[in-house]
């Protein structure tokens, strides 16, 4: 077991990659409750309300963390699935090129891996909804899976369209290429793919017009219906994981649209800039989503597939265009 000199650079890059990933996870984890706070506050202010301030979700999370969950008899997954969901969200954030395009060589940040991780989180929350044994949980899970079945392919196709000009399905390579050639951001391929991505991110994270995150009406819920039975710490994990997922996906879209500020190699200065850049970008994206939501109403459930089909068509056009335009 002697370390050959040839392996040494790999070890260093692995260590750097690990550091970058851990830092990225920490920053996003810290930012996601504030992001939700900002989004809610933007909405409240635009509606003419005062709002509780941007720290309320953080306070809620800390409160929930101290509370004992109530679990109905016969429910087995309630303690497991929230942790699993948080795990998939952290993994998702780790894989996305949010702060740096430096990666761990052994772990591919490949597009297909990312979509797989996304799906894992979706399955985990659907199982949580089913496990509660109530009609609402099952109803929410069924609706969620219906939406997921339409969302995941669009994510794949949209990012695939972006990967064709680059010649790689690694997300970090795509972002690198965009930094190198910023004009590609406004190419028809890129714009079509970005619009498609935005629609599916909105659907995936349960925002208007697909799902209403602030409703109390059980029968209309999608995401909320699945977590109705979760309480205490479990609810805290579930909420945190979905917020983290939203922060990560918003960060990805923001980096694909505005790739500047992403560190391409490891340096203290570069990372510091990258942290500021991703926080600002995620907050702006979140505030933008919240501001647009004020003007939106929730579409009839049966119209959701139409919306998602439209985004799929756009993603598909982006793929077609990417072959034609190159």
């Amino acid at each position, binding site marked *: 077991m002697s370390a050959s000199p040839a392996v040494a650079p790999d070890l260093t890059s692995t260590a750097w990659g690990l550091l970058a990933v851990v830092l990225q996870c920490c920053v996003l984890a810290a930012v996601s409750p504030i992001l939700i706070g900002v989004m809610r506050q933007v*909405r409240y202010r*635009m*509606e*003419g*309300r005062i709002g509780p301030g941007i720290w309320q979700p953080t306070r809620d999370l800390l409160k929930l963390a101290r509370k004992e969950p109530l679990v109905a008899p016969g429910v087995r997954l309630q303690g497991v699935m929230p942790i699993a969901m948080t795990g998939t969200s952290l993994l998702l954030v780790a894989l996305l090129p949010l702060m740096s395009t430096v990666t761990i060589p052994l772990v591919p940040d490949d597009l297909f891996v990312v979509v797989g991780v996304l799906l894992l989180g979706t399955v985990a929350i659907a199982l949580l909804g089913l496990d509660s044994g109530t*009609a*609402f949980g099952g*109803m929410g899970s069924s609706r969620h899976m219906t939406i997921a079945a339409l969302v995941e392919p669009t994510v794949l196709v949209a990012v695939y369209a972006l990967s064709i000009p680059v010649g790689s399905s690694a997300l970090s390579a795509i972002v690198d290429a965009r930094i190198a050639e910023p004009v590609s951001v406004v190419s028809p391929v890129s714009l079509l793919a970005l619009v498609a991505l935005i629609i599916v991110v909105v659907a995936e994270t349960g925002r*208007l*017009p697909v799902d*209403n995150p*602030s*409703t*109390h*009406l*059980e*029968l*209309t819920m999608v995401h909320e219906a699945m977590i109705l039975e979760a309480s205490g710490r479990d609810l805290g994990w579930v909420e945190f994981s979905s917020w983290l997922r939203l922060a990560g996906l918003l960060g990805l879209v923001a980096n694909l649209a505005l790739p500047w500020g992403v560190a391409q190699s490891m340096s203290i200065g570069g990372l510091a800039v990258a942290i500021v850049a991703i926080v600002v970008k995620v907050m702006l994206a979140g505030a933008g989503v919240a501001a647009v939501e*004020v*003007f*939106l*109403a*929730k*579409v*009839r*459930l*049966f*119209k959701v597939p139409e919306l998602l089909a439209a985004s799929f068509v756009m993603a598909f056009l982006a793929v077609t265009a990417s072959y034609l335009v190159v």
Partner: protein
Amino acid sequence: MTNPLVNPVPRPAERREVSREELAAATRELLDTAYRLALVAMHEDEATGRVVHVFLAPGRAPVELVVRFARDNAWMPTMAGISYAAGRFERVNRDLYGLEPLGHPLPHRIVRHGHWPSGYFPMLRDADPDPVFDADVGQYPFVEVQGDGVYEIPVGPIHAGLIEPGHFRFSVVGETILRMKARLWFMHRGVEKLFEGRTPEAGIELAERISGDTSVGHSLAYAVAVEQALGLDVPSAVHHRRAMLLELERLYNHVADIGMVVNDVGYGVVNTHASRLRETLLRHNASVTGHRLLRGAIGIGTCDLAGQVDVALLREVAAEVSELIAIARGNHVVMDRLTATGVLSLAQAESLGTLGYVARASGMTVDARWDHPLTTMPDGAAYPDLAGPVVETTGDVLARFMVRAREVTASAELVAWHLDHLSGLDETAVAGMSAGMGADANLTAAAADPPSGLGIVEAWRGTLVHRVELAPDGTLSRVRPVDPSFFNWPALPIALKDTIVPDFPLTNKSFNQSYAGNDL
């Protein structure tokens, strides 16, 4: 046209004695001549039982069909085949008095609470006011819809929002509702029993609390009924002031619900502003009557306001509501959600005997303010917007929404009109023909019957009727309130046919019926 300063007087009911055998024929005859069954009240006299059926028709005197029977031979022939409402009233009398409707096609319990001891009929004179509750052993079978992929969603009686208790059982395929059954009746407080033995004045505070959002509607109907029973002459000015309160109640409830309907499709900004306007109206209510829900102003023969009605403020609110409606209607997703959702056809609305904005949204012109007026109403030529009830025709959520939206404007203008009209009125002037009318009516009735009166009022949910009887010592012997919700609730499952589950809350909110007014 009569002298505009003279108020129409509540007409005394024409009372007819019928036997149990004649009842069906007499009912059919009335229903065929534009009357509707508005109220059924059971009474316990010394050795006999008495059931009073009140029939109303626009612009005509109410008709009361009175059936008497010996207490030891207490049963009624069912009229469920003639009138759907009659069938429901019979079930109420069965559950509260043990009066058996013979041959009833759907003899399930209706008011009866699961925990009442068996054989317990709370309205009987000798009923234990504080019974020992049993375990809920009674069955409440829901029809199980069979078939591939049919599943049930039980909702309530406790809900996530701040609403009253009701259980809804959906049979669903995918997202489409095949059948919905509402189990209400979780709210029995024994209101009718609580009225007994009170003085008429003490009954006001109880009437105001039958359904919190209908304080004026219930207390006004009650007061009018008592005044008729007492043969009391009420000055026109009092009637006009009461009419203003009724419109103020309509205003704040309509404004709140307009916001909620839009909120249910996720368009929160309209609700935020509707809530603000509702608060403005509630504060105005407090300045007018000293109570945010308009309590304490109406008394027997009186209506005392603590402050001035601010017409400019009301018009401003109405204008802002119109703006909100325009914003909501400008959003195509909101319009898509409201249009053609939860449709109640005119035929369905008529056959169920629906009332209020539910009926008017389906094209029925039913409104007690014009059908059974207590005050003069604006001259249609001079005020074309106030010439009659607001009616829409499509019967969907949008129609119910728009009826209420248009009624907000109309109500603000009606308040202005009443206020204007008041300034020309002598404070003590009594409408000419009413003197002694209530007393006369009672002379024509069977000598044995105690003095009685009917109060018919267009509360914000629809036509609300109270029937009051007085004991010889002047206390209340029987008060029977009937909230429009009693007629409107059965329309909800019918409107839901072929609606999808996520549209139920929206449809339900557009009906917004009272649970407490329904279950006394």
